[in-house]
Structure formats: C-alpha cells, structure tokens
C-alpha cells in the first residue's frame, strides 16, 4: 500500500484506514526516538557492486528507513537487504548487503569469517593448555557443531584409509560409534543430574577428538606397532585431560567418576580402533 512517509502525525480521527494510521505512528515513533545505539555505519554501497545478471529480483533503489532503537536484544533494526539474484546461490562473496553491525544484514563473508573464527577459538579453548582459562564450566559458551563434524569425519576418513580391507564398514562404524557415543555420553551426564546443555556437551566431546585425530594421522603414516601404541596413549591422555574439566564441573563431585569413566572408555575404544587397523 502506498503510504505517505510524512512527518505529520494525525491523531484525530481521519478517513485513513487503521493500518495506515498504525504505520504513520510507527514512523512517528521511529523518528521521535533518540538516536540509536548503533555506531555510525557507512551507507550501503551502490547497488551496482552486486554481480548482477539479468535478474528480475533487483528492486529499485529504496532509501533505507531509519532504524528502530535496539533496546532489546531480540529486536532487529535493519537496512532492508537488496535481494541479490538467485543465481548467486553458490558464491559466498556477495558483499553488497551494507555494513550494518546487525547480524541480519551483514555480508556473507562476515558470517563465514565469524563461524570459522569461532571454530578456531573453541578448539584453542578446549584442547590446548591454557593457564588463563576461565571457569571451564562456563567456557565453550559459543558452542558450535561444525568443529566436531569435521573432526569426526576426518577421524573416520583416516581410519578408513589405514584399513586395507572393508574400508566402508570401518568408516561407517567409526562415524556411528563416535556420533552415538557422544549422544549417549551427554545423556549420561544429564541423567546423573548434571547441568550441561545437550549441544554444548556434544560440541565439547567432538572438540576433544582433535588429539585422537592427530594420533590417527600419525599412526596412518607409521607402521611400527610399538610407536603406534605410544602415540595413541599420549593422545588418549591428552583427550581425556581436555574433557576432564568440563565434565567434572557439570556434575556433583560425588558423581564425577560416574560421568568421566564412560568418556574415558569411549576414547580408549577409539584408541584401540586406531591401533588395531592395519
């Protein structure tokens, strides 16, 4: 519907429909609210910078409305994103969305970078020794499942490569064992009365697989059984050490062993898989 985006507010009954009046009030409240907390953002780049084919979706240049005040976290002030051509689906380099700090309209590259940096920071937090680490129960707040996904697939691939026969079964077994094992371990903690979020614990157990990934890679290249056993023992200890703080802070101190023993058992079984593959 065509609205007049004028500044005058008509408070007395007029012949406008209700919806028009509400929309006018929205504009009025928008324009009368104090300047928002958003930092000054540069204006969105000209539309011509988007790679365009002859696409029917490009709208005419509509000036962005002033943003609503971002008082609550859940409201989303936005510059309306210019819809890119649908043929752009595969490319992740569309950067013509405007640079509002709001995540809804950020460029796609920013989202990719943000997710990747989250994976790296989670990995550093979980696996590597860090004396300045804050309370481990609260760490890994930014859980994500991409890291664990990559690690599980990588471990399955490595095991499958090392196997000389029955490669697909090895892979399927490894993948199913790790995925189901993570779910069951999480349920174990929850049933013991622990305070941990389901996905947070899944993500944690996945990240703790990283040392075993390294161990499997080394074992793939080495043939000596004694060396493999040493490598696996070292990486197993590293994985368990990495998982210990998170698991132990999540449950009652009297039930710590009950929560930690299955984790250790699962990593031991993965270690055996790595050694036994020939």
């Amino acid at each position: 519907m065509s609205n007049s985006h004028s500044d005058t507010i008509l408070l007395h009954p007029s012949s406008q429909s209700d919806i028009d009046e509400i929309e006018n009030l929205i504009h009025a409240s928008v324009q009368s609210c104090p300047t928002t907390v958003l930092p000054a953002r540069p204006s969105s780049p000209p539309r011509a910078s988007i790679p365009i084919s002859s696409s029917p979706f490009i709208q005419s240049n509509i000036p962005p409305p002033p943003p609503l005040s971002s008082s609550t976290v859940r409201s989303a002030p936005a510059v309306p994103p210019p819809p890119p051509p649908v043929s752009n689906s595969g490319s992740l380099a569309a950067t013509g969305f405007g640079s509002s700090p709001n995540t809804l309209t950020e460029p796609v590259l920013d989202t990719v970078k943000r997710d990747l940096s989250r994976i790296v920071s989670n990995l550093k937090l979980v696996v590597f020794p860090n004396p300045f680490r804050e309370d481990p129960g609260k760490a890994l707040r930014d859980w994500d499942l991409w890291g664990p996904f990559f690690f599980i697939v990588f471990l399955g691939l490595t095991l499958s490569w090392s196997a000389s026969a029955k490669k697909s079964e090895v892979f399927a077994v490894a993948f199913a064992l790790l995925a189901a094992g993570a779910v069951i371990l999480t349920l174990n903690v929850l049933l013991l009365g622990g305070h941990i979020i389901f996905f947070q614990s899944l993500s944690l157990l996945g990240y703790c697989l990283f040392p075993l990934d390294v161990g499997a890679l080394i074992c793939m290249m080495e043939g000596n059984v004694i060396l493999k056993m040493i490598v696996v023992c070292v990486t197993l200890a590293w994985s368990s050490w990495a998982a210990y703080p998170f698991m132990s802070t999540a449950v009652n101190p009297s039930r710590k062993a009950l929560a930690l023993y299955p984790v250790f058992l699962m990593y031991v079984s993965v270690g055996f898989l790595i050694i036994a593959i020939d």
Partner: protein
Amino acid sequence: MDLSQASALAFYILSTLFANSFVIIFVITVVLAALDFWVVKNVSGRILVGLRWWNEINEQGESIWRFECLDQESLARINQKDSMLFWWTLYLNAVAWGIFGIFSMVRLEVDYLLVVAVCFSLAIANIIGFTKCRKDARNKIQAFASRTIASRFSSTLQSAFSLV
C-alpha cells in the same frame, strides 16, 4: 538455496555413477548437506524471508534461542514468491530425505540409512528453527502493533481531556 539442497539429493541419487566406494559417497553427501544447511540458515533465510535464528548460552548456563527478523516495513516488502519458494523447498527437502530413508529401511541398507538420517535431521533442524523464528516474528509484530494502538489510545484520551 534450492541449488544446494538439490545438489545433495542429486549426488545421493546418482552416487553410483560417481564413485564406487561408500565412504566417498557418505562423506560428500553429508558435506553437501551440511553446507546446504549452513547456506539455508545464514544466507537464504536472511535474503528470502528475512529471518535468522541461533542458540546462545547465557551467563547462568541456560540455553536461549535467539531470533532475528527484519522490521515491519522490510517484511512487508518481501516478495511473496520468494517466501513461498523458501518454505516449499524447505519442506520438500525434508520429505525427499524421508522418502529415501523409507527406501533404505525397506532395502535394509543400514549404511545408507545412516547418511539419510544425518541429512534428514539437518533438514528437520532448519525447519524447526525457521518455524519458531517466524512465529516469534509474528508475535513481535503483534506486540508492537498492540503497543502502538495502546499508546495511541492513551494519547487520544489525553488530547481529548485536554480539550475539554
């Protein structure tokens, strides 16, 4: 967006043409499905329907679902066809993986059932997330509208009394 979903489905169907080994089929299908999940969640959702959802854990250790939506004018400006395309392909994707799951159950191929289970759960996750997000957006709009109606009502009353 539907390109990425279609590529995962197509690779699964035509997998025997491409590779002999189950491992490669599994990995590529699951990787394509995961990429498609990411693309739909982060790119298509924002562009086609202006919605975005994610999960955070706050200081007390509780998990909160956060939803974002465009403000009302931008929502009104969203192309109706875009929105229908988005939702329909989301549902069709889940239905297609469900059918493949039934097929592999009937043929008792547990390996392929694993692949289908992973892709199906990714599709369901996206559906649930976006449905919750849309409901939340509608609630927000209603709340905002009722707030403005209430404020308008009270200001009308005030102006009426001031005139008296």
